[in-house]
C-alpha cells in the first residue's frame, strides 16, 4: 500500500560509519512509504548503503566535520535518491570493471557495481556544493507489493 505519492525527505549527518544502520532504516522506511515490496526495499537499501559508505570513506575521507547529505525525492512514478559528499567525486570512465578476470579476486571495487545493478538509473555530478550520486528507482506495479506498511 502506497501512503506517500509526492514529497521530499532530506537527511544529513557527520561522516561516521556508525550512521550506516540509520541510513538503512530510513531507506527501508521510505521505500515502504512509496509502496515498494520487500525485495526492492532490500536492494535499494544496499545500494544506498554502498553510496553512503563511499561518500563517508572516499568522498569525505572519514573527516567527521564533513557532512553527507541524503535526499529522497518521492515522485508519482519514481523515487530519486541523491547522496552528496564534500569530496572531489569519481571519474566514471576510470572505474575498473569488477567482472574483469584480473579484478575478480580484488577485495574492493564492487560498490558502484552493486548500485548500478540494483537501481534503474545512476549518475554522478559535481556541483558547487560537492559531489553527488543520483540514483533512480522507477515505481510501478511490478515492484509494488501488498505489504503492510505497519
Amino acid at each position, binding site marked *: 500500500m502506497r501512503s506517500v505519492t509526492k514529497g521530499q525527505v532530506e537527511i544529513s549527518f557527520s561522516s561516521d560509519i556508525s550512521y550506516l544502520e540509520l541510513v538503512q532504516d530510513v531507506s527501508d522506511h521510505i521505500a515502504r512509504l512509496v509502496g515498494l515490496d520487500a525485495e526492492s526495499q532490500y536492494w535499494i537499501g*544496499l545500494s544506498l548503503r554502498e553510496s553512503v*559508505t563511499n561518500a563517508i570513506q572516499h568522498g569525505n575521507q572519514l573527516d567527521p566535520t564533513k557532512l553527507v547529505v541524503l535526499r529522497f525525492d518521492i515522485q508519482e512514478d519514481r523515487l530519486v535518491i541523491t547522496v552528496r559528499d564534500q569530496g572531489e567525486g569519481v571519474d566514471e570512465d576510470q572505474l575498473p570493471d569488477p567482472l574483469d578476470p584480473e579484478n*575478480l*579476486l580484488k577485495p574492493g571495487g564492487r560498490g558502484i*557495481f552493486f548500485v548500478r*545493478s540494483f537501481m534503474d538509473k545512476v549518475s554522478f555530478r559535481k556541483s558547487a556544493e560537492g559531489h553527488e550520486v543520483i540514483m533512480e528507482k522507477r515505481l510501478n506495479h511490478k515492484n509494488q507489493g501488498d505489504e503492510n506498511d505497519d
Partner: protein
Amino acid sequence: MTIETRTANGVTILDIHGKITIGEGSAEIRNRVRDLLQADRKNILLNLGDVSYVDSSGIGELVSSYTTVTNQGGQLKLLNLTKKLRELLAITKLLTVFDTFDDEQEAIESFR
C-alpha cells in the same frame, strides 16, 4: 558479527552470525582465518546460514579470506548461502570462484 569455531573430520567450520558489513568489523573473518592458517588448519568451511546481511565490503572480506587460504595451499569453501548472498555472488561472477554447499556433510566430505 560473532564467529563460532568447530571441527569435523579435519575441517574447521566457522559458524558466522549477524552482519558481514563495513560497520561490523568485517576484518574479523580474515583475522580468524589467518589464525587458523598459522595453526596449520587449512581446510576451512564458512557456514553463512545465519548471516543476516552482506555488503560489498563483506563480499571483499570473503574474497580476501579465500585468496589468503588458497595462497597458502589450503581450501576455503562456503556453506548455506542465503538467497540474497547467492545473488550477490552470482552477479559478481564469484559463484564460479567459490565452492558452495547447502549440505554440511557433503561440504565436509568434499575436502578429502
